[in-house]
């Protein structure tokens, strides 16, 4: 719609300008439409375009009118003469023309907004008598539907024949005059426009989402954008099973240069580079990348080590061809030199800054295409873009943000069955459909966080869905790898540094629900809980100098 409107506007420019810059101008508008979501942003966009048209069109026309023409020389003694165009005062006719067009464009735009806000679509069926219509609550691809209440103003309907219904326009809100029967004389289904709020049982309506298989959608996204950001759920088995398949896909492999991960301490970039490239590197050295993270003090989920192995396997399979690099985005703190909270403070305080710096240095500066993976809390657009995304945008690149989410749309027990028909895993673009209208926080937290006014379509560009909430599981490091082992003792030390007291991190189950039902806080027994330690003063310090990579 927006593209078509601007294509019409573009036709007003001289052919020469369109031929030289028409496609570029269209691309710029496409970029803005994609990045500037929401009603206010759209109004601002079209206001900008109208002003731009009024300001630039007369100038472009004037340049075109005075375009230089090569006059063939009739005599070898007379050379064709050229002159340079001058800037001058815009002529009034051109300004009036631009103003008139702007007024028409604004009128059309506001009319369109009015319709889209005040009306919504519901499916109708014929009731017991010819004059009664019942509304089916909208359910898109599931026309089984729940039966809704009667349509207000049903008495104003008149049946003209068995296949076509006409509506007397007594209600100013009913704007669609007729529709056709498609289910025989005893009942019909069709589409009607009703005023928003008229149907108490009808659900908010927008168009249906385009649900794509996650691998196909991700390959398309990485083809269309230099950077795709994936907000992940930590340790989720189903999510990483899909990621491990994705990295082995040849098309994905050819399009992506780097995968920047949160789950890798950048102190160990050198070892990881060698490992990912297929060299023989002792596992005890490589695994330090994900076992010695600064951002995750507890034992890391095994899914991360498996992901590194999957990328290495993909590279080895395609040896001699394009290779994927894993770039480590966790700050470079060395746990062997961290003895207290003050030592770790600067690293913890600058996790996003460091990740953004890595993206600038290792991806943007090299003009690479990259998939960025970080916990969804870091990427979610809560109050505008996060630090990492802002940094990327400042560098002139607009990333595409996909966030992990599931079918919990309200409280913990409010699961939406519309997700059940989707393929798994799937990626769904969020603009202009009912998925984008869902509250973001319950969807991305499996119903553990309450709904806020933040809509999914404002929080991200697309949703990664790997299964219904209760099918999702988190993988934990087995107890045997931690209980009484040197690494387990080290984890206990790190947790004590951060929490100020020992914390239990040993669990018998290696696979647990990703989003367990929230439990009421038990009454403390055996005295008050130990207080959290004060924030280290060093969080205000800058990151220390980066040591050589190991």
């Amino acid at each position: 719609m927006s593209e078509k409107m601007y294509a019409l506007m573009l036709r007003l420019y001289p052919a020469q300008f369109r031929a030289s810059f028409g496609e570029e101008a269209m691309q710029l508008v496409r970029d803005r439409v994609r990045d500037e979501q929401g009603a206010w942003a759209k109004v601002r966009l079209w206001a900008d375009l109208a002003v731009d048209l009024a300001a630039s069109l007369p100038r472009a026309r004037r340049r075109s009118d005075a375009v230089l023409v090569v006059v063939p020389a009739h005599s070898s003694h007379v050379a064709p003469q050229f002159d340079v165009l001058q800037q001058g005062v815009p002529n009034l006719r051109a300004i009036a023309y631009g103003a008139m067009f702007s007024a028409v464009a604004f009128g059309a735009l506001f009319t369109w907004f009015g319709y889209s806000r005040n009306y919504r679509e519901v499916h109708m069926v014929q009731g017991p008598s010819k004059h009664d219509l019942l509304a089916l609550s909208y359910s898109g691809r599931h026309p089984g539907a729940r039966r809704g209440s009667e349509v207000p103003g049903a008495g104003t309907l008149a049946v003209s024949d068995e296949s076509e219904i006409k509506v007397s326009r007594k209600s100013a809100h009913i704007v669609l005059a007729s529709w056709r029967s498609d289910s025989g004389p005893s009942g019909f289904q069709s589409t009607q426009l009703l005023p928003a709020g008229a149907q108490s049982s009808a659900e908010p309506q927008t168009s249906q989402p385009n649900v794509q298989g996650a691998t196909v959608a991700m390959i398309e996204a990485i083809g269309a954008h230099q950077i795709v950001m994936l907000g992940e759920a930590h340790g989720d088995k189903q999510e990483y099973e899909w990621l491990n398949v994705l990295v082995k896909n040849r098309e994905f492999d050819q399009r992506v240069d780097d995968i920047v991960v949160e789950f890798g301490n950048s102190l160990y970039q050198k070892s990881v580079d060698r490992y990912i490239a297929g060299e023989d590197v002792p596992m005890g050295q490589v695994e330090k990348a994900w076992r010695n993270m600064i951002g995750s003090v507890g034992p890391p989920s095994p899914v991360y080590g498996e992901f590194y192995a999957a990328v290495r396997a993909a590279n080895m399979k395609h040896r001699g061809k394009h290779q994927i690099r894993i770039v480590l985005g966790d700050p470079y703190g060395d746990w062997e030199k961290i003895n207290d909270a003050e030592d770790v403070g600067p690293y913890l305080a600058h996790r996003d800054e460091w990740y953004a710096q890595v993206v600038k240095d290792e991806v943007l500066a090299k003009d690479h295409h990259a998939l960025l993976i970080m916990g969804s809390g870091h990427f979610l657009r809560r109050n505008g873009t996060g630090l990492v995304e802002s940094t990327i945008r400042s560098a002139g690149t607009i990333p595409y943000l996909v966030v992990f989410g599931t079918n919990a749309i309200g409280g913990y027990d409010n699961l939406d069955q519309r997700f059940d028909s989707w393929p798994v895993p799937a990626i769904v673009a969020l603009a202009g459909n009912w998925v984008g209208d869902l509250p973001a926080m319950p969807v991305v937290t499996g119903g553990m966080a309450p709904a806020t006014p933040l809509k999914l379509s404002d929080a991200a560009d697309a949703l990664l869905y790997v299964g219904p909430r209760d099918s999702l599981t988190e993988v934990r490091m087995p107890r045997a790898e931690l209980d009484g082992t040197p690494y387990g003792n080290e984890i206990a030390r790190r947790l004590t540094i951060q929490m100020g007291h020992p914390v239990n991190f040993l669990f018998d189950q290696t696979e647990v629900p990703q989003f367990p039902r929230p439990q009421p806080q038990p009454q403390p027994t055996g005295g008050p809980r130990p207080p959290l330690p004060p924030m280290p003063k060093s969080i205000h310090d800058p990151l220390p100098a980066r040591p050589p990579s190991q």
Partner: protein
Amino acid sequence: MPKRKLDPLPSAAFQILLSLSDGERHGYSIMRQVEEQTSGNMRLGPGTLYSSIQAMLEEELIEEVTRRGDAEPGHERRRYYRLTPSGRKRVRSEAEKLADVLRVARARNILRGDYV
């Protein structure tokens, strides 16, 4: 003597040259950079942006560059622009003029604080 098209340099053209001072950019990136460097006060529309680019290409203040990614299938096909040596000289000269104006303004107490 015909007047040069970009003399004086229009504000949009100056901002575009400034946005290209740290490297090559495509149209949308230029628009975003100008928006950022003017604190949101100038959002160049496609008409203004590309007519300015057209004029600056003709005056050889900027030039188009070919990028590796453009040839690859599935990638967005964008045109990137960068400053020419004369474009860099021109933007520096314009910035110095502005700095002179600011110095005068400060000397006459029109501006307060540590501008420039």
